[in-house]
């Protein structure tokens, strides 16, 4: 059976190998070059005390920011592509050509046939994803050091060990939907929708931040707050590490979150300055525009009233930041990889059921 599995899948393994060689021949020289440039710049900037400008300088000149994102996106989509091009056709090709009836009537049980195929394709996908992700993890060390964002949702999903688990899950899911629907186009459509929903929406936004109880930190409302990113006050624990910010909330001294639609009346600015339109709120709850009105910090959210932050602060309001500290990065990698591997049992089990229990 190994003979047939290799004969049927060798082409896709070779294609993966070719892509890996192309990828490596680009990543290795640029990765080395960039690391050296960074190390060099790190020495010179210390003498001129301009190290805080390094990210801007180096990312402008040496790696295009765009390129960095392209590589990240490529690694992030790799498991999905494997699920679509390796997983889905595994069964649909047999069903549409009727060759399942040929191979299932040879002197080998359906169970053994399926097991051997699954091992080849799932191990192949794991090795492929591991090779790409490993190369990217090595390459991204400079960008990680400069941007302090390896815990961010895209960087986290495209580095370390999680891409291997993603690939196994995605391919297993593709195989399951292929066995289920028997037709390639339908299975492709369902697989891509489900994979994007789980891997790009649900897990990174709703599940991952909750793997461990976040650490809480309170800071002044009117400091140098970065929106949707890492606050840069010198005294806060986030300023120099790649943490995963779970939430930013404006809370009262009794830890009650601020109702942006009905804030304390005395802090509402009745005549907002010209051109102040507020900043649309994302899932982080605080926006601030320090010093926009002659030293006064103003903010508003979702079209609510404009609020004077200095006033809020004097009433005891503070910014509460919940975050996952950077030392939890590998814990999170392990937890997420384990989660996906455990999830993979479902599509693999269903595939066995579909192939063994259903008529050919």
């Amino acid at each position, binding site marked *: 059976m190994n*003979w047939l599995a290799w004969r049927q899948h060798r082409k896709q393994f070779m294609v993966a190998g070719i892509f890996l060689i192309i990828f490596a021949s680009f990543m290795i020289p640029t990765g080395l070059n960039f690391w050296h440039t960074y190390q060099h710049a790190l020495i010179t900037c210390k003498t001129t005390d301009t190290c805080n400008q390094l990210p801007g300088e180096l990312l402008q000149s040496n790696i295009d920011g765009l390129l960095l994102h392209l590589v990240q996106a490529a690694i992030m989509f790799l498991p999905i592509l494997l699920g679509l091009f390796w997983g889905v056709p595994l069964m649909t090709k047999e069903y549409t050509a009727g060759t399942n009836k040929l191979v299932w009537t040879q*002197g080998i049980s359906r169970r053994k046939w399926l097991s051997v195929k699954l091992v080849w394709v799932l191990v192949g996908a794991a090795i492929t994803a591991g090779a790409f992700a490993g190369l990217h993890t090595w390459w991204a060390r400079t960008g990680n050091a400069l941007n302090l964002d390896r815990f961010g949702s895209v960087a986290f999903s495209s580095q370390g060990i999680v891409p291997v688990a993603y690939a196994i899950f995605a391919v297993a899911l593709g195989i399951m939907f292929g066995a289920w629907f028997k037709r390639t186009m339908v299975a492709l459509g369902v697989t891509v929708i489900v994979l994007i929903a789980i891997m790009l929406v649900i897990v990174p936004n709703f599940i991952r931040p909750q793997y461990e109880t976040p650490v809480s930190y309170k800071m002044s409302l009117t400091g140098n707050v970065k929106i949707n990113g890492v606050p840069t006050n010198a005294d806060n624990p986030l300023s120099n590490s790649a943490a995963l910010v779970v939430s930013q909330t404006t809370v009262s001294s009794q830890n009650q979150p601020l109702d942006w639609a009905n804030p304390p009346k005395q802090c509402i600015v009745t005549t907002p300055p010209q051109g102040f339109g507020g900043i649309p709120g994302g899932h982080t709850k605080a926006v601030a525009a320090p010093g926009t009105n002659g030293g006064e910090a103003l903010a508003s959210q979702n079209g609510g009233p404009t609020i004077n932050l200095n006033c809020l602060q004097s009433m005891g309001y503070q910014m509460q930041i919940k975050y996952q500290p950077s030392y939890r990065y590998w814990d999170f990698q392990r937890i997420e990889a384990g989660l996906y591997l455990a999830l993979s049992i479902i599509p693999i089990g269903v595939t066995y059921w579909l192939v063994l229990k259903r008529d050919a």
Partner: protein
Amino acid sequence: MSQKTATNAIQTNGLGKRYRSFWALKDCTISVPKGSVSALVGPNGAGKSTLLKLLVGLSSPSAGSANVLSKSPSQSSAYIAEIGYLAQEIPMYSSLSAKEHIAMGQHLNSNWDSVLATKRLNELSIPLGRPVGKLSGGQRAQVALGLALAKKPNLLLLDEPVAALDPLARVDFLKSLAHAVTDAEGELTVVMSSHLLADLERVCDHLIILASGETQLCDDIDRVLKSHKLLVGKHQDSVNSDDYTIIQQTDTTKETTLLVRLNNNKLNDPSWHVRDVDIEEIVLAYMGQKRNVANALAAKGGAR
């Protein structure tokens, strides 16, 4: 019963297959003697493919049971090893060559004769190295038959193997099949479905007629020919008799024509003109009878 299974390669008992509320095969009871070459005939949708799939273990029955080579059909390799099966559309891996298919068989079967398969295909001058997707329909069918025979099966199940072939390829295929049967010296049982009756008459000695998912007839062809007669006589209202079972009745104002199955191979009423019939007439009569019954039932249901 146990004696019966010993001499029969296939024995089914009320075998049925239901897809949701539709019975593709119903109450199918047949026995196929060892070493026979059976023609499985019936109109499209009669359940021929369903029956063959049940027998090879590709699907599982909703009712009844089957005994094939003294085993119950299953997915186990021990069961499949003894059966050669050719599915309807003759599926093969189109990018693999005949040679690679033979190699595949070598890897997947414990009892496999690569030499014989290669020799057979060489004799037919089929290019062994070319992807089977690039072969003609006739050549593909020959490769598929070669693969099925390379398993050295005791039972060969062929689902409309010649349906898509041109007349010449059809004759060649049946010739190959006849050779294989001769070579096996009575050890090989064949069941071949088709709706091309002339082809089947050439190689088959046993007849199974399926219509509307039910068995109409399952018997030796010689016996079938002997027991079926066409009776022609003056028009009469009451034609029933203990001597025969009416398969098909045609009435005109003057004449009544009956195609009957004689119950004891003799007819006591001398007023009938008796004529022999051929297999094709018999098969068509059975299919027509089934349709008439179905129509009558439908009409009855509608009236209610």
